[in-house]
């Protein structure tokens, strides 16, 4: 095994869905790979099949063409080396923060004392030390999303897979949480694949950005982000940052417009009530 080779390889993925209007191609011949320690973002407008791609890589859906492999091993079902952070609120409301974070260790059969100890480390890592005994309902949305992230990190995945983890949060919280992610990545050298529709977020965090087209989702362009590391959210005020954002928006604008027109046409057909 070559240490320098890619740890995640995605080859020629095609995924179609049956819908009442006929077959719909969600993603079409998507290929890329991720090197160890790399932070890669996949960006695209709503409806470009980002979440489908996320589920395919995470092994949560099958019935697609192509191949996903992790460290040379083909993915069939959820893979131990992949840790997923979901877009939706996904903390267990019946578990405290520490119990949530210890969940993957519990599934793996780690003894109670040890898993609590290890979970404590990850709770501290996402900056929630002191909240161990709280229930999710007692926390803010941003804090809950950090609990989810700590939970996934606690399973010590080789690759962290995140699906718009900050989509439900406000812009300022999102920037500050971005700092947290940067810091964690610095500390753990965590290989990360981030799915997002937020340009600032993608540029702020990534080494490379994959821009997708609107339906069917294809890889439109790959942009390398040569911003210095370690970074913080202050980078958003730099010229280089603005340049990247402008460049990616010019690629995305056309796709987003197509998406919006498509959605309007769809609503007109459905005569959906408000």
């Amino acid at each position: 095994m070559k240490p320098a080779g890619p740890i995640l390889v995605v080859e020629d993925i095609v995924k179609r869905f049956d819908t009442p209007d006929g077959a719909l191609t969600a993603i079409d011949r998507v290929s890329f790979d991720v090197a160890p320690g790399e932070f890669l973002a996949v960006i695209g407008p709503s409806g470009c099949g980002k979440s489908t791609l996320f589920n395919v890589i995470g092994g949560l859906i099958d019935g697609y063409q192509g191949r996903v492999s992790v460290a040379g091993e083909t993915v069939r079902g959820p893979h131990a080396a992949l840790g997923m952070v979901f877009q939706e609120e996904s903390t267990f409301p019946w578990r405290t923060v520490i119990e949530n974070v210890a969940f993957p260790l519990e599934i793996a059969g780690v003894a109670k004392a040890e898993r609590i100890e290890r979970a404590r480390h990850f709770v501290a890592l996402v900056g929630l030390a002191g909240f161990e005994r709280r229930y999710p309902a007692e926390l803010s949305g941003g804090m809950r999303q950090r609990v989810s992230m700590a939970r996934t990190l606690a399973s010590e995945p080789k690759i962290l897979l995140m699906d718009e983890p900050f989509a439900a949060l406000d812009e300022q919280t999102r920037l500050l949480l971005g700092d947290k992610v940067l810091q964690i990545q610095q500390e753990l050298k965590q290989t990360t694949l981030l799915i997002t529709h937020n340009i600032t977020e993608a540029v702020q965090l990534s080494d490379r950005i994959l821009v997708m087209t609107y339906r069917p989702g294809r890889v439109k362009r790959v942009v390398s982000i040569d911003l210095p590391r370690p970074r913080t959210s202050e980078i958003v005020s730099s010229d280089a940052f603005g340049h990247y954002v402008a460049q990616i928006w010019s690629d995305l604008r056309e796709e987003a417009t197509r998406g919006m027109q498509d959605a309007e046409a769809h609503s007109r057909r459905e005569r959906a009530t408000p």
Partner: protein
Amino acid sequence: MAETGRLTRAPALVANPVMLLRVGLIAAVLALWQTVSVSGLLFRDVVPSLGAIAGALARLLVDPGFFGHLGTSALEIAVALVIGGLSGLIVGLALGANRLLGKAFEPYLYYLGPTPKIIFFPIMIMWFGVGPGSKVAMGVISCFFPIALSTAAGMRQIDRVLIRVGRSFRAATWQMVSKIYLPAMREPIVNGVRLGFGVAVIGTLLAETKLSNRGVGFLVINSYSTFDMPRMYALLIIVFMIAIGVNALVGRLGAGRPHIKS
């Protein structure tokens, strides 16, 4: 700060008027009963005075024989709830987990659910005999339906993302059930058990009124057939109190964690 201040002060402020109102309402109901009883508007012996009912209640509570009957009924109901509850839970989980099974068999459960179970009693006697068996069977068929249906519905209401979380961590099926499905469905299951408890009590006691020489249902019908109305009301009051108590207890179990407002 203001929030916590309100939280600590509010119950003290509200509790008193609530208690007052409750006492007032009970007093009003009792007064109404007594008025009807004294007025003779309804046949006197059927609406006995509060004194007569209280006397009967006191006599019941010092009668050790009564607690034997109460124990019999309680045991029958408990066994019925365990058997009916567990089978309801398993069937509910199966129907909720599998779309095909759910669509194929749930309609039948919905049709049989509202069918009054007492009509099956002649059959239950023949199947399970005249002893506690037929009463337990009545309790079981009564509580099976609400528990199975609310488990199946609860299963479908589970936030899908929680299931995906479990799968992403490669939880085994039993881990999914014990660590995700059941805790996530606590509320619908507890509600199902509450409903199930109510109908199990009704099913078991009605069966006892029809055929038995033990149990509270037997005492009720025996008091009625000898026209000892104060004793009958005293028995009903005790049954109601116990039902209300158990219901509150189960309800407290179900309240559990605060909800996340989405």
